[in-house]
């Protein structure tokens, strides 16, 4: 078909319209016109038209299906192994946790766990912890028994804890970045987003000092340039500690103390238009 179409395109070219319409011999005009019509008809029938002409939208079809037994059987040994390590209850969650912008209880719970474990294990002077909203991989966790596997689902990445020393002015630049992203998980800091900028920043309840040196907990992903490039030159302590393990260890401390986890619902980041 392609070859034939090409042939006719060449043919079409040599049968120029000017010759046809200005020919003095009427017979020749007629013959040429017939040839042209024939060519045009074949050309039109061969020429591909890619335009989609109609579209109908289906609604959502809720399927009640019997799971495929072959695929269930294939998955079973993997599921058993996952269950062995992932189903143990590591804490009791006192209230449901939600992922939200500018901040939510789920992001704040995770940031709290990073800050608390950084203080326990590495640097008792750590003042703040952050995680980007995109790194929170579940939208919510229900109240009740919290399983190890759920922490893997909310933080599946093998991101490592990094502790940074950062001057107030550079911290403010990072907080503007957090504001431009619409917020995120945060601990030790309160701020207000106005016109995508961080304003009214409080660190540990005190106003930000642009000249002070602060101690920040963040992930190696962010520090190495994931989404924000301002940390690359800063002195950083690589802890080698998985952020996911920080959250699991944090939960286990509640379990050992026999108390359920409650994340303060106070707004850490506010939006003002």
């Amino acid at each position, binding site marked *: 078909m392609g070859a034939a179409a090409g042939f006719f395109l060449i043919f079409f070219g040599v049968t120029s319209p000017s010759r046809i319409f200005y020919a003095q011999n009427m017979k020749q005009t007629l013959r040429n016109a017939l040839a042209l019509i024939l060519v045009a008809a074949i050309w039109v029938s*061969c020429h591909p038209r890619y335009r989609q002409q109609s*579209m109908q*939208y289906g609604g959502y079809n809720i399927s009640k299906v019997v799971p*495929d037994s072959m695929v269930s059987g294939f998955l079973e040994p993997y599921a058993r192994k996952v269950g062995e390590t992932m189903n143990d209850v590591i804490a009791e969650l006192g209230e449901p946790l939600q992922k939200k912008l500018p901040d939510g209880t789920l992001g704040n719970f995770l940031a709290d766990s990073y800050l608390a474990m950084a203080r326990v294990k590495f640097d008792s002077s750590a003042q703040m912890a952050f995680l980007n909203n995109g790194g929170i991989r579940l939208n919510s966790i229900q109240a009740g028994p919290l399983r190890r596997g759920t922490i893997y689902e909310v933080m599946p*990445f093998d991101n490592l804890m990094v502790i940074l020393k950062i001057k107030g002015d550079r911290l403010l630049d990072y907080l503007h970045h957090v504001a431009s992203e619409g917020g995120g998980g945060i601990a030790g800091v309160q701020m207000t987003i106005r016109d995508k900028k961080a304003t009214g920043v409080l660190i540990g309840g005190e106003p930000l000092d642009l000249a002070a040196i602060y101690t920040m907990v963040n992930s190696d992903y962010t520090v190495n340039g994931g989404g924000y490039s301002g940390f690359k030159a800063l002195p950083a302590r690589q802890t080698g500690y998985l952020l996911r393990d920080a959250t699991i260890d944090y939960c286990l401390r509640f379990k050992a103390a026999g108390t359920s986890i409650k994340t303060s619902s106070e707004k850490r980041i506010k939006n003002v238009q």
Partner: protein
Amino acid sequence: MSNRRKFLRDGGLAAAGFLISQPLLFARESAPKTRRLTILHTNDVHSRLEPFPMDGGSNAGRGGVAARAAVIKRIRQQEEHVLLLDAGDIFQGTPYFNIFKGEPEIRAMSLMGYDAGVMGNHDFDAGIDNFASQLAAHASFPMIMCNYDFTGTSMEHLHSPYQIIRKGDLRIGITGVGIELEGLVPEHLYGKTRYLDPIVQANRQAWILKKKKNCDMVICLSHLGDAYKDNKVSDEVMAKESEHIDLILGGHTHRFFDAPRVYNNKTGNQVIVNQVGWAGLRLGRLDYSLEATGKKDLQRSETITIGKIIGD
């Protein structure tokens, strides 16, 4: 040139053309005029092999490969020509990935009979060498990438810039594009992979597939993301700047489309873009009718929610 010679030339060419075209016309008459193609697609399944747990959450009981496999099997029984495609981020998101590094994800896709896939940024999460070895050991489907230069990496011989899949006498050309990795994926995970302009690369593959390989339809699997507020390259940008792509199956942005989006390409023809959220909660279904003239109708589109919902 005399009139007579001119008549002979013009008339002769017309007659020759007519004779040449005849077998083609007859061939077309004997073949079925319109062929139906059902395209099923997923994106960003993120290691969600099991359904979401029955914890009272809004997705409880939904998703899972066993339920998806059953839905796909049923559609294959009903339709003659079915394509099953994935738009990336197969990996990362449940403990399965932390423990098994992607083996059950790739094996499940092979069992379900996926026809092709493209790499998402999270498919690099346990390193490019891990992805390559899982693919080499367990994939029965091709990985299609046209804008990652994998020279000198373990993926070098485990991908192709395009693939032609035959369904009956239909020739479906598939190409695939991935997102810029720098700043998104830690460098040590993607190694020597070089990101190339996805629009230039996809347009080139689509041209080859349509013009050289005579494909009836060209599909681009994309992990660019559907659209952004800034001028970052996306499925929307690619659709508008494309020429021979008919359909873009997207991912990355985890967007649940209410309906496929339609854009006009560079030459004013329509390009369809679709995406079905994430986690294998839904399966996209697009039913095309393809006429021998090259005309394509997206006759029906459906989004199938996989698995149970609470109260079922």
